[in-house]
C-alpha cells in the first residue's frame, strides 16, 4: 500500500558575522529572517497548535518541553513564504523549509530557491551593519569543532507500514548512500577516529540506531511522529542523517533514490535481509572509505561494499517500480545506476557531480600547489568556503558559474521558485492564499490556514491531505473568490 510521493527538505544554515567583536548567532539569524519580510506578507504567525514534536513513532510520547514562542516572538522568528515554504529562526540558525513537492526535480528547485532567499536576506541585512562587518552564511553541517546543524528530509508514508519495517529496510540504505549524498569534510569530530578527509559532514555525529532526539546522541533513524497530515493515514518520515548539498545533482539523487526505497518498503518488498551488524560503526567506516570498496559486515555474516548494497536496492527498484511511473523517477533510476557504475570504477570521475568528489578534487589540487597538509587553516577555509552562499565568494558558486559542475536547472527556474509554489501539492493553496489574501490570513502551518475575515472570529482550514489543494483542485476557487467566500466554500464542502 503506497501513498503519493510528497517530500520536502529543511536546511539549517551556519551563520557568522565577520569582524563583529562578539557575534550573536541568534541575533544575526533573527535579523536575516526578519528583513526578508518585505513582500506584503507581514505579521503572519506560525500555527503551533498543529505540532507534536515529542510524539514517538514507536508508540509513546516522550518527556520534555516544546518551545512555543509568544505572539510577538512568533511573528519575529517565523515567515511563511509565497512559495509555500517556511523560513524561520531555529535555535541559533536561519532555517529554510521547502514547500511540499511531488518529485526530486521540483525539490532541487525549491531547495536551491532557499539558498537564493538566504542570499537576498543576507544582502538586505548587510545594509544595517557597520561597513567593516559582513554576514556570512554557509550551507554546511558543522563548525569542525563538534557542533552540527542539520539538513533534514521528509517523506510522506502510509501509516500502515510498521515502523520496524522502516528501521530494518532503510538503515542499510542510509548508511550506504553516503558516497552519493556526502558533502565531504576535512577531519573527524565528536570523538570519531582521525581522518584527513571523509565523505560525510554528518556521519561522526550519529551515535545510536533509533531514537527521537535530533540534537544529542543522534539516531540514524529518527522516530519523530509528527505527520503534519491526517495521522490515521500518514506518517512523515523525518530523515536526519543526510548532509546539506550544494550540488544540484547530489540533492536530486539523494531525495530521488530515498523516495524510491521508501516506496519499496511500503510495498513490503524490502525486508531485513540487508541489516548491518553494526550500523553506527558502519556509517563512519563508509564515510572514511574514499575508494568505496571497503566491505561492511551484514547481520547474517555476508560482506558487501556500500556500492553492492546500493545495487541490491536498485535491483529491487527495477523489479518493483514501473518504469513508466514518471519521467523523473525513471531518470532518477538511470542516474542512480550511472553513479554506482562510476563509484565502482573510479569515484573521482564524479568530480562534476557529487559534492564530496568536487570538493576533494579542489582540496587535492590546492594541497599540491601550496605544499599544505589537511590540517592547515587554508584547507579548512577552502572546505568551509565551498559552502558559502555568496555568489562571488562561494567556491561551489564559482564552479557553477564557470561551468565546472553539472547543472540540472536553469537559474531562471530557481528564481521563479522563490515566489511561486509547486502546483501539485497543498503548498499551492498555502502559497496562493498568502499571495492573494495577505491581510486576511492570521496564521499558517503545514496543515492549516487560519483566516481572519471579520473582526469577530478566526476560521481554520485544515489541510490534512498533502496532495490536495493543488492548482487543479483549487485554482478556479482562488482566482474567483474573496477570502470570506473562500473560507465559506471550503468549510461548507468539508461539512
Amino acid at each position, binding site marked *: 500500500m503506497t501513498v503519493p510521493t510528497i517530500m520536502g527538505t529543511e536546511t*539549517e544554515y*551556519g*551563520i*557568522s558575522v*565577520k569582524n563583529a567583536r562578539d557575534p550573536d*548567532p541568534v541575533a544575526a539569524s533573527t535579523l536575516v529572517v526578519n528583513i526578508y519580510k518585505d513582500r506584503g506578507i507581514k505579521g503572519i504567525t506560525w500555527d503551533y497548535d498543529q505540532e507534536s514534536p515529542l510524539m514517538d513513532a514507536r508508540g509513546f510520547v516522550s518527556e520534555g518541553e516544546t518551545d512555543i514562542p509568544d505572539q510577538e516572538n512568533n511573528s519575529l522568528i517565523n515567515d511563511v513564504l509565497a512559495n509555500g515554504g517556511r523560513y524561520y529562526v*531555529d*535555535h*541559533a*540558525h536561519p*532555517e529554510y523549509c521547502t514547500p511540499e513537492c511531488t518529485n526530486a526535480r521540483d525539490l532541487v528547485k525549491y531547495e536551491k530557491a532557499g539558498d537564493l532567499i538566504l542570499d537576498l536576506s543576507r544582502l538586505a541585512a548587510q545594509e544595517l551593519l557597520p561597513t567593516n562587518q559582513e554576514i556570512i552564511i554557509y550551507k554546511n553541517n*558543522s*563548525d*569542525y*569543532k563538534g*557542533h*552540527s*546543524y*542539520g539538513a*533534514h528530509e521528509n517523506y510522506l508514508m502510509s501509516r500502515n507500514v510498521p515502523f520496524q519495517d522502516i528501521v530494518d529496510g532503510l538503515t542499510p540504505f542510509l548508511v550506504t548512500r553516503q558516497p552519493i549524498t556526502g558533502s565531504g569534510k576535512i577531519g573527524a569530530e565528536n570523538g570519531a577516529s582521525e581522518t584527513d578527509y571523509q565523505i560525510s559532514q554528518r556521519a561522526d555525529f550519529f551515535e545510536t540506531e533509533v531514537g527521537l532526539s*535530533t*540534537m544529542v546522541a543522534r539516531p540514524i533513524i529518527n522516530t519523530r511522529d509528527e505527520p503534519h497530515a491526517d495521522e490515521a493515514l500518514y506518517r512523515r518520515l523525518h530523515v*536526519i542523517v543526510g548532509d546539506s548539498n550544494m550540488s544540484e545533482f547530489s540533492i536530486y539523487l539523494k531525495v530521488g533514490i530515498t523516495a524510491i526505497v521508501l516506496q519499496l518498503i511500503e510495498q513490503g518488498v524490502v525486508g531485513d535481509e540487508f541489516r548491518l551488524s553494526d550500523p553506527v560503526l558502519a556509517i563512519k567506516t563508509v564515510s572514511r572509505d574514499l575508494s568505496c570498496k571497503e566491505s561492511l559486515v551484514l547481520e547474517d555474516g555476508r560482506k558487501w561494499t556500500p556500492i553492492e548494497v546500493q545495487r541490491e536496492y536498485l535491483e529491487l527498484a527495477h523489479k518493483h517500480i514501473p518504469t513508466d511511473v514518471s519521467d523523473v523517477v525513471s531518470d532518477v533510476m538511470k542516474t542512480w545506476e550511472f553513479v554506482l557504475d562510476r563509484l565502482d570504477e573510479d569515484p573521482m570521475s564524479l568530480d562534476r557531480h557529487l559534492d564530496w568528489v568536487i570538493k576533494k*578534487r*579542489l582540496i587535492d*589540487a*590546492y594541497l599540491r*600547489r601550496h605544499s599544505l597538509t589537511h590540517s592547515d*587553516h*587554508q584547507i*579548512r*577555509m*577552502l572546505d*568551509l*568556503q565551498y559552502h558559502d552562499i555568496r555568489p*562571488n*565568494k562561494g*567556491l561551489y558558486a*564559482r*564552479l557553477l558559474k*564557470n561551468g*565546472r559542475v553539472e547543472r540540472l536547472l536553469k537559474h531562471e527556474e530557481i528564481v521563479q521558485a522563490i515566489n511561486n509554489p509547486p502546483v501539485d501539492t497543498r503548498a499551492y493553496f498555502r502559497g496562493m492564499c498568502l499571495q492573494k489574501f495577505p491581510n486576511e490570513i492570521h496564521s499558517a502551518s503545514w496543515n492549516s490556514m487560519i483566516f481572519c475575515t471579520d473582526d469577530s472570529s478566526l476560521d481554520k482550514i485544515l489541510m490534512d491531505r498533502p496532495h490536495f489543494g493543488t492548482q487543479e483542485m483549487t485554482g478556479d476557487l482562488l482566482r474567483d473568490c474573496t477570502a470570506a467566500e473562500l473560507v465559506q466554500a471550503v468549510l461548507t464542502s468539508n461539512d
Partner: protein
Amino acid sequence: MPAEKQQDQKEKRTQETEEVQPDQEVVEQGEEIKEDLDQILDEIDEILEEDSEEFVENYIQRGGE
C-alpha cells in the same frame, strides 16, 4: 645470463620505452585538466577569506536541529 632473466630485462626495457613515449592524447587531456584546475586554483587564491586562520578558529556554531 639465463634466458629467463634476459626475457625479464627485455620486458623491462620495453616498459621503459613505453614510459618515455606516452600516449599523446592522454598527455593532452592531462594538461587540459591541469590548466582547468590551475585556473580555479588561481581564483581560490584570490577569493579565499583573508585571515583564514583566525576566521576558521572563530567559526563556532551552536548545535541546531
